[in-house]
């Protein structure tokens, strides 16, 4: 089986959950001896030096079976690729590689046209798409948050979307949905990283029988030798489990604002010491209001008692995880949007750092409250402040939750699950079970 994995960006160039999962899967396939090729997009937001005159597809840094799709004309309004040469060269690439399976991980930067082209060019190939987020459903960056008040949105419709974008008529949203569904119709199956994603797309109109739930591929970094070189509980730390950390993008929807508010409440309500470390970057994509607030907390302009310490460690690579995880106890996942999968949960689980997460979307599905982590209502800073206190003071809580951590499934098992879907066996097994 010759497989072509098509990823939004290469994680080497631009970090992000979708590309990380795609790349891990690709590497896992190669490791399993499969004939897999990676085609990762690059656009002008990345290093322009990778673009070569006249080239649409090029190799990547001399890596075997890894290629870049150089996207210079993606239209965000209609999710289209406006460069006809890009379409023609993609078609040529498919004819050249002749994959039996084409597995897309996104349409951003590529354009929905590529789905149609893949089907037309390879009528016998099996085509799949992993649903990494809700951009197909929601024009507001796929967040499914109402643009006017940031409340959670549960379903899209022409009129509801128009309410979020008053300058765009309902009819245009109808056309948007038509166009996306037209492109999605080419797929033999979809892969959703959580049941939550599957259910949202089912409600949107994708056939349930076509959607398969498979967790994102994720290397278990805790099994790496480098992790074992570092003692997970360094000497000199507080005997209490009072070290909390955030990992991820420094943007509004990731919910850091809720943590800041919770710290204020905690300071007034409790007398315990607390350490909060922030790991992440991309503050430039946050709102100005958020940036100001972030700066106030980090710079100390915002007054907190001495016993509460807030620090920012900057961005991190996967290889930094062992050290970053090594000095904290709890991983905060305070998202205020419909978190699809929560890659950071995988990271927390692999290092047995119990997550404290919003009770929302894929987070609520993956964290088993009181078993391997703690949940609080999304946006409820008061509840989070109480959880801080409980996490610090409740005897044996950390140990119990940490011990129950599910870890992460092996990449090999995720590859195997994909192969079952690609070959059509997953459906057969499910039908057999149903019968």
């Amino acid at each position, binding site marked *: 089986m010759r497989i072509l994995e098509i990823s939004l960006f290469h994680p080497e160039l631009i970090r992000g959950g979708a590309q990380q999962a795609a790349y891990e899967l690709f590497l896992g396939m190669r490791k399993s001896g499969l004939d897999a090729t990676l085609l990762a997009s690059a656009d002008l937001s990345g290093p322009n030096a990778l673009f070569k005159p006249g080239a649409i597809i090029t190799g990547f840094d001399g890596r075997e079976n890894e290629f870049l799709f150089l996207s210079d004309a993606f239209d965000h309004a*209609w999710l289209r690729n*406006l460069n*006809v040469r890009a*379409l023609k060269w993609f078609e040529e690439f498919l004819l050249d590689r002749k994959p039996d399976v084409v597995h897309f991980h996104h349409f951003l930067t590529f354009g929905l046209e590529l789905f149609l082209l893949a089907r037309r060019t390879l009528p016998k190939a099996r085509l799949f798409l992993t649903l990494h987020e809700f951009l197909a459903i929601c024009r507001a960056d796929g967040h499914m948050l109402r643009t006017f008040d940031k409340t959670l949105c549960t379903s899209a419709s022409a009129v509801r979307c128009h309410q979020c974008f008053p300058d765009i008529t309902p*009819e245009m949203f*109808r056309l948007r949905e038509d*166009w996306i569904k037209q492109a999605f119709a080419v797929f033999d199956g979809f892969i959703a990283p959580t049941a939550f994603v599957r259910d949202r797309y089912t409600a949107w109109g994708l056939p349930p029988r076509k959607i398969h739930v498979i967790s994102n591929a994720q290397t278990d970094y805790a099994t790496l030798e480098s992790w074992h070189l570092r003692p997970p509980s360094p000497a000199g730390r507080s005997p209490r489990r009072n070290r909390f950390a955030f990992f991820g993008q420094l943007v509004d929807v990731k919910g850091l604002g809720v943590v800041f508010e919770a710290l204020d409440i905690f300071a007034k309500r409790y007398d315990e010491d607390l350490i909060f470390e922030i790991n992440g970057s991309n503050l430039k994509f946050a709102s100005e209001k958020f940036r100001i607030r972030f700066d106030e907390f980090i710079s100390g302009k915002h007054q907190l008692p001495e016993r509460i310490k807030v620090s920012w460690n900057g961005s991190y690579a996967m290889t930094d995880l062992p050290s970053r995880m090594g000095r904290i106890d709890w991983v905060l996942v305070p998202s205020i949007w419909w978190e699809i999968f929560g890659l950071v949960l995988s990271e927390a689980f692999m290092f047995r750092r119990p997550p404290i997460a919003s009770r929302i979307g894929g987070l609520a599905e993956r964290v088993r409250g009181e078993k391997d982590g703690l949940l609080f209502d999304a946006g409820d800073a008061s509840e989070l402040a109480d959880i801080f206190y409980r996490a610090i003071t409740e005897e044996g809580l950390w140990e119990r939750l940490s011990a129950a951590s599910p870890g992460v499934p092996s990449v090999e098992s995720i590859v195997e699950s994909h192969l079952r879907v690609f070959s059509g066996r997953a459906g057969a097994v499910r039908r057999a079970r149903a019968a």
Partner: protein
Amino acid sequence: MDAELAYLKRYPDVAGAIKAGTVTSALEHFLNYGRFEGRVWLGPERTAAGSEPVPEPPPPEPAAVAHNCDAILLTQGFLFVDGWVDDRFDGLAAIEVAVDGAGPVLSLPSCRYRRQDVEQHLGLSSTFESGFWQLFRIPADLGLGPIGLRLRLASGRAVALGAGNVVRLSLREHFEAFLGFYGRRQLIGSLVARSFSELGLGLAGTIEHMHNAIRTTRAATSEGTYGRRPSRPLLSFVCCIYGIPDFLFLQVAQFARYANLERCEFIYVNNSPELEEVLHRDAEIAAFLFRTSVSVISLNQNTGFSHANNVGIAEARSQTIVVINPDVFPYSAASFGTLSRLAQKTRHALIGGKLFYADGTVMHGGMIFIADPRHSALARTKVWTVEHPRKGFPDLGDSDTTPVPAVSGALMVFDRADYDKLGGFDERFIYGHYEDADLCLRFADKGWKVLYDASLTFWHYEGRGSIKRPEHAGAVHYNRWLFSRTWSASLSRQNSEA
């Protein structure tokens, strides 16, 4: 040469009318007919030496009459004056213009409109139409020198206006500016009735002249066909694009959802020059992606629905023409099936379909003509409007084909030969509106059928496919007047028979 002789020299047909006894003098002709036909009454002509008498200076004003000339739009052959006057005690009778300083005097009755800013300025608690305007046809060789303006009041007194803000515009700019004003002006009373009155009293003739002059400047700036073009397509889709380029790709994509398009051709005629390159780009992509023929003919200006479609149909290769708006899309796979069945079977029939709003209710199921009772009463002539029965109502699930008075130009299917015999869409209509109904009535006039096929189902996201500009509102008044004038007798007869 006196004014009488100048008039006869400029309009030789008037001399014939005098000889035939229809009128007794040039002045009588002007007063009773000429001024309503857009003809101008000229003062003494200039001589090369400029020794002819100049227009009489305004008499001394016994009391100041508040007034202002806000704008003078000037282009070769036309002049538009816009201002206001407080004429509550001595009504404004006419506007007189002397172009090129010592040139001849043009005089036309003033048109009026409401100016709330003036009412506020004058501190009035009541309303009155203080605004005045007039669109003059002027000799094409005039207009380069200074302009003299005066208002002639009912008492005979003249009020000299300042030169105003003279803005020299291209013909098309002038036309658009005027129609923009005409569509937006505020009145005390019915806009429709007043428009009919003004148009009937000569304004229509001036607008028609202006429009005709613009029509001579139309040209295609680029033409391109992408994809393999069938020599005899099953269907030729002809679509006029204005203001929004997105629909070219989206429309072809929507058809491709349901059908193999290799035997079709799509011809897009672009009325927005600024979109030219984008449309060619999308045509190339759509033709490649959906394996069909997509042509783009880009025009140098907004030529309107009639001209653009006529240009597109002239390029079409199929016997069966589908005129389609950019915001019309097949409802289901059956839509294309019905179209295919109609191919080459539309001789002497113009067919429209059942069109749906995006919310699933019916937008169009044929059109009827109604003489609007209120507007007709106010205008003292029949004002015809086009109505869509059951617009916005739930679908009844009907699938029959029935004769109707007319169908929407959003989707029309007809035979190329029939269209050719009729001479295509009437290009006297400006921009859009009423030309589709006009074509249907001309079909019916020939004894051919106008049919509503309820199985021909399409979405129509009405009003979304193009942009709206101020001048369109002015053109609608003209088009309604033209349509009513052209078809009133026939429609009255048909409706009374029905």
